[in-house]
């Protein structure tokens, strides 16, 4: 197990390096640069600005400079917010996205699994039907519609929640619901299907034949195995959710990280593009690694040696 983890960590580092390199190449081949502006710059200004931000170095020199700095955890200075380091911007914005992300992840996992199990046990009964209709809605309604609708009813019409920003716990209700809807519905469907399938297995029949109570059969024998596909899904999902959603954060005016993913590319904010990519890939890689390790404990068929 220990060796497996070491191996995986090494491959994770290589993966991140690969992502970085690819991002760097793609980014440098995007037309335009961080200082493209409506007012045409004279060649002198352009040269002066480039020199100031070290963009006048050839690409390979900049590449190694970036690598060296990233190894030290320094993402450099943002071109889009003068004087602010990428580290600082992420540090300020991440807690907002993270708070929403953690709350949403817990909601998705707990409620999603409960609804899924409920549905599976009451297969084709009214409870199941209602849950599945809700799930279809959750998957199909775009999150921005949900977000805008939430604001309209609960803020504008009822005045229960604030109209924008991220100060009190009330500010987070809307974003958490809007960001959860899709994954919640997905997890519910996933755990329903999976549990139904597991319940038809021979070993469940055996368990029932042994005279175990239905409760023990479900909780001890069926549930654990039915969660394997759910675990596969939620690993990368958590990584995606805690790093922020562009749309949701924009609608609720949350000063989180979601915006960076889009604006940095639009603005050709090179340092931010690199910083945010590395940050995000570290999350995804760790999440996937943990999922793989968790498999060992919930699925006895899997062994890493």
């Amino acid at each position, binding site marked *: 197990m220990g060796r497996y983890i070491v191996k995986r960590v090494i491959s994770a580092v290589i993966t991140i390096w690969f992502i970085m390199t690819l991002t760097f190449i793609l980014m440098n081949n*995007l*037309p*335009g640069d961080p200082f*493209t*502006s409506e*007012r*045409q710059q*004279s*060649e*002198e*200004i352009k*040269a*002066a*600005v480039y*020199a100031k931000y070290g963009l*006048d*170095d*050839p690409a*390979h020199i900049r590449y190694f400079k970036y690598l060296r700095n990233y190894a030290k*955890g320094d993402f450099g200075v943002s071109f*889009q*917010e*003068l*004087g602010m380091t*990428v*580290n600082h*911007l*992420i540090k*300020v914005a*991440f*807690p907002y996205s*993270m708070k929403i*992300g953690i709350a949403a992840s817990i909601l998705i996992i707990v409620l999603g699994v409960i609804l899924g199990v409920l549905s599976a046990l009451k297969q084709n009964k009214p409870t199941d039907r209602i849950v599945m209709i809700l799930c279809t809605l959750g998957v199909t309604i775009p999150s921005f519609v949900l977000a*805008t609708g939430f*604001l*309209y009813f609960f803020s*504008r019409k009822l*005045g229960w929640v604030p*109209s*924008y*920003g*991220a*100060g009190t716990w009330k500010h987070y209700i809307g974003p958490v619901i809007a960001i959860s809807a899709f994954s919640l519905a997905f997890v519910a469907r996933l755990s329903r299907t999976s549990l139904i399938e597991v319940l038809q297995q021979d070993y469940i029949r055996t368990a029932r034949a042994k005279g175990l109570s239905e409760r023990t059969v479900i909780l001890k024998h069926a549930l654990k195995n039915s969660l394997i596909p759910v675990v596969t899904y939620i*690993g990368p999902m*958590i990584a995606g959710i805690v790093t922020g959603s562009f749309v949701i954060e*924009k*609608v609720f*005016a949350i*000063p989180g990280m979601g*915006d960076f993913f889009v*604006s940095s590319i*639009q603005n*050709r904010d090179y340092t931010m593009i690199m910083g945010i990519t590395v*940050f995000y890939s*570290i*999350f995804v890689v760790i999440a996937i690694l*943990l999922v793989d390790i*968790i498999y060992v*404990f*919930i699925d006895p068929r899997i062994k890493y040696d």
Partner: protein
Amino acid sequence: MFKKLLSVFLVVMMLMTLSVGCAKDNDQPVDDPQGPVENPADDENPAEDPDEGEDYLYWNIGSKPKTWDPTLNSATDGGHIIMNLFEGLLADTEDGLVGAVAEDWHISDDQLTYTFDIRKDAKWSDGKDLTAQDFVYSWKRACDPTVASEYSFIVTPYIKGSEEYFNAYAEIKKPYVEEIEAGLTDEVKNDEEAKEAAIKEGLAKPEIKEAIDKELQSYRDNVAVTAIDEKTLQVELNMPTPYFLSLTTFYTYMPVREDIVEANGEGWEKNPETCISNGAFKLAEHQSGSHILMVKNDNYWNADSVKLQAVRGEMIVEQTTALSAYQNGDIAVLDSVPTDEIPKLQAEDPNFHVAPRLGTYYYIFNVDIEPFNDLRVRKAFALAIDRKMIVEQVTKAGQIPAVAFMPASLTYSTGESVRPFVDNKPVEEYGLDPYSAKVEEAKALLAEAGYPNGEGFPAIKLLYNTHESHQKIAEAVQSMWQENLGIEIGLQNEDWAVFQDSRREGNFTVSRGGWLGDYNDPMTMLDLFTSWSGNNDTQWRDEEYIGAPWDTTLNPSAKPFNDAIRAAFETSGTERDANIKKAEDAMLDNMVIMPIYFYSYTDIVDQAVVEGVHRTPLGHWVFKDAELIK
């Protein structure tokens, strides 16, 4: 049992990774493993407590400003903030130019030397005296090649010695570069990248850097802005510039503090502790992507007249959210609202206003290539659109149909508007009717050019930058050309950064264009299309320009325009007015652009909450005269 414990442990670990990221971007090394987990309470600021902030004016900036360092800013959002944190020598108000930091000013008879008397009681927000030296530093900083201000162009053509200073670096380093190059091996010389790297490294050597800096300093000393004494500033200009006083109201000309800027570097303005300013307000809080808080500056010379205790500028990007925040009573001042809501707001909300803005929306023709190298084709296309329909059915935000280039708020030296509007309404000019398309005339011209009913017309594409509103206009224009000229054109959208390059380098046949003025003088619009302008995307040049090496097709028709602009720089009064008129005529007679509408502002000021909120003629919010209604 062990397995169970371990799986619980792993789940906990998984959640912990959520905070691992945090540890990575912490600037300081953190010993306490709990440290990196952000405590939300630390970040929350008092303004978010519902009890506090009652005396605040809530205003939506609508975006995340890149900077509000007056010298470096080039954007409107930063401009709003600067106009409230800083103050220039003069201020541009609805009633014209008034003294701000300058109490009085004198212009020499030859109009080349300006002397400003700075108020004795003008101070910085930390209580230090505001001196003429502060302006000397700031103006030199604006044309410092190493500072590389994007708006240096608003200083360097005017102040004597500043252009030389700005361009000096390239000249000074030349001999050093040559020397370094001579010392390189052939192998390095032939490798472009290695050569560049070697030169850069060579120039960075302390002794060479010092020598270059020393030479640069002599250029800096020659920039003709001087402090005669503590409170008297003198500046010499290259040429008589009737709008120089107007320029001093612009943010690039506002003062910054040398000790602060030099000690803290870029980003000094984002930290409340180092953001020392001289305007009615000072910075109290800044949270990137969230808000800024500006509080009354008690050291402001006219602080007694400032009634507002604080302005909180929100960075809500989503227009629908901002509008609903206003409707909830959470925000009192905002300026961008969803286009679809405008007709309803206009009909129902007395707080909603539309005002003309100094800027024009137009399409540009690439005059170098077929088919728009033919004036008749350009005219036909310009005649074939219904501008009234575009502003009423498509843009719907109170824009004014445009049949010329300069907006009506620009004036001649006599104070008369450059646009002969009747009852504030545009009239026919340059053969274009603001209220309808002239289809017959357009068709005739097109037939004359060899494309009767659009037959045989090459396949062309209309280029615009990706944006919903530009797309709607492009679609409307596309259908008008199809209907009125029988010509089917394609639409092509490009990302802003890509679009600008395509347009600049002439890789288009017809493209969207637009320009917002930087200062209150016709030249802010007209000099865009000179042959020596890098922004002259029409490629309409009668002489080659070093900044546009791709434009080798010369158009003699541009000569009268360039001559008129040159003459305008050398004349004044009504003579200059005549040259300005001549220049605009030359442009529109050649129809190098196809005007569509004059920009407008939309804004909402909640009159139940606040009064006395103004906008400068260039459209910046000014809160110093505002007062909350209790």
